[in-house]
């Protein structure tokens, strides 16, 4: 369903994503892991066609994201890091607008919007203005926006950030349901750095660090014999840290390179946000 082929993204001399390849089969739920600034968001932006790759390409549902952009985008539901919301619109109006944008046929539009609101628990706030909603509700509107056109592929950038534990549980069960047979076997790629989340929903883990894929394995394999995912995560990120810096990286301060500060913040890592 998703076929990433050697994706490279450079910003000037910095390499944000360095030859990432993977493929995801229909109905799979993949956790996209990595420390902050590892290139998760950039990779997702490339998969959705928001950013072009410097090299390599990806196929979504068999369509090349650059050459058959429109067809590929139709198959994608995307929740960016910052939910793309218009503060002045009400929830229902907004979702109807997105449904139109995503080519949901007129006859199905109303029911599609209803369904998305129901799934994300938004029925009570349908007439409320988005700008007046709490953060949790806004995040849910963001998810509703991603699933309103029943896309085959869902790409979610930190879908549960800013939610309370009950909402997180709701969203997780929603995602599990979306991937199930009766809800249409959506293929889901979600990025997070909450490892518990991965253990709860994903069946497979892809770990990137410094723009490179360092781990790609089924969750069951990583947690076999009582091993903890956290250990695998730390091992993979640290092992990568210990390797000599690739020549394409900008020179880093020697003090930073000599003291790997754990899995959370690799020192030489400077992933520039694709600014406006």
């Amino acid at each position, binding site marked *: 369903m998703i076929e990433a082929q050697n994706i490279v993204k450079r910003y000037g001399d910095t390499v944000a994503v360095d030859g990432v390849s993977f493929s995801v089969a229909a109905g799979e739920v993949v956790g996209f892991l990595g420390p902050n600034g590892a290139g998760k968001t950039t990779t997702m*932006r490339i998969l*959705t*066609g*928001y*950013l*072009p790759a410097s090299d390599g390409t990806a196929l979504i549902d068999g369509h090349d994201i650059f050459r058959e952009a*429109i*067809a590929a*985008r*139709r198959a*994608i539901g*995307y929740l*960016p890091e*910052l*939910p*793309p*919301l*218009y*503060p*002045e*619109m009400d929830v229902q*109006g907004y979702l109807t*607008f*997105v449904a*139109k*944008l*995503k*080519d949901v046929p007129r006859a199905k539009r109303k029911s599609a919007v209803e369904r998305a609101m129901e799934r994300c628990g938004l029925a009570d706030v349908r007439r409320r203005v988005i700008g007046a909603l709490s953060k949790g509700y806004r995040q849910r509107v963001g998810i509703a*926006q991603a699933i309103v056109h029943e896309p085959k592929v869902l790409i979610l950038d930190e879908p549960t950030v800013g939610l309370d534990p009950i909402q997180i549980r709701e969203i997780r069960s929603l995602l599990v349901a979306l991937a199930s047979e009766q809800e249409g076997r959506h293929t889901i790629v979600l990025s997070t750095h909450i490892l518990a989340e991965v253990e709860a929903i994903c069946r497979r883990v892809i770990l990137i660090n410094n723009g490179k894929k360092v781990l790609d394995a089924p969750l069951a394999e990583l947690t076999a014999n009582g091993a903890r995912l956290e250990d695998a995560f730390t091992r993979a990120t640290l092992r990568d840290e210990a390797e000599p810096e690739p020549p394409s990286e900008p020179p880093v301060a020697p003090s930073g390179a000599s003291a790997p500060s754990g899995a959370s913040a690799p020192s030489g890592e400077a992933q520039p946000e*694709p600014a*406006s």
Partner: protein
Amino acid sequence: MKHTFVIAGRELRSYFVSPVAYAVLTLFTVIGGFFFLASILSFEAELANAQQWQAFDYLESMNLNDGVIAPFFQIMWIVLLVLVPGLTMSLFSAEKTNGTEELLLTSPLTIWELVLGKLLAALAMITLLTLLLAAFCGLLFVFADPTPEPRKALAGLLAVWLLGANYAAIGCFASSVTRNQLIAFFLAIVLIFFLWLIAVVTQIGAFQQAVGAESLFARILGWISTADHFDALMKGVVDTRDLAYFVGITTIFVLLTKASVESVRWR
């Protein structure tokens, strides 16, 4: 093209759920009413003057088209110069601050559909403003005797609409290059002023000496400048060359906007 209307519809709805549309329409009506009255009063004063001095030739030449409608539209041009950038400043820059740019650019629509949709929304607002001006002129047709020449008044309204379209395209472009609405607003005004006043350069003595008042370069600058084309339409002369000017400038800025929106992908 279907998405164009989806984008335009959303944009118009957001104009009318936020205070923007109401503020612009109210401001335009109040200022318009004031200057309309001022134009009529000054016409009246001039009429009385001419009668007092028994300047019959001059009295003969006076009419409501040149005496009221034309000066009124000239002043409303200045108002448009400020209001249109106010209408367009948020069109693209707000998408960047809301993060909705990411939604639009990952949706199955082309950048053309996006840009034209935004422009269409701005044009709809400008049509509304032009209709307001038409309503003011309508008063002259109802209450004045003799009535103004209707075709000349229509040419004037066309001039205002084309000018508005022109400024909308410039405003779209200004909005597409920044995420800050205020910068978009001022950039649009600067560009508009530049287009308006560029011909003034040809009036400067030093320029005339160096380049020549009738040189090709001076003529090009004169052509780029908005004023002559606007005045020609105002006189009731609907010349294809003036229409081509407005359509041309609008097209250039639409193309620039498209390139600017697209550049997000290639930065």
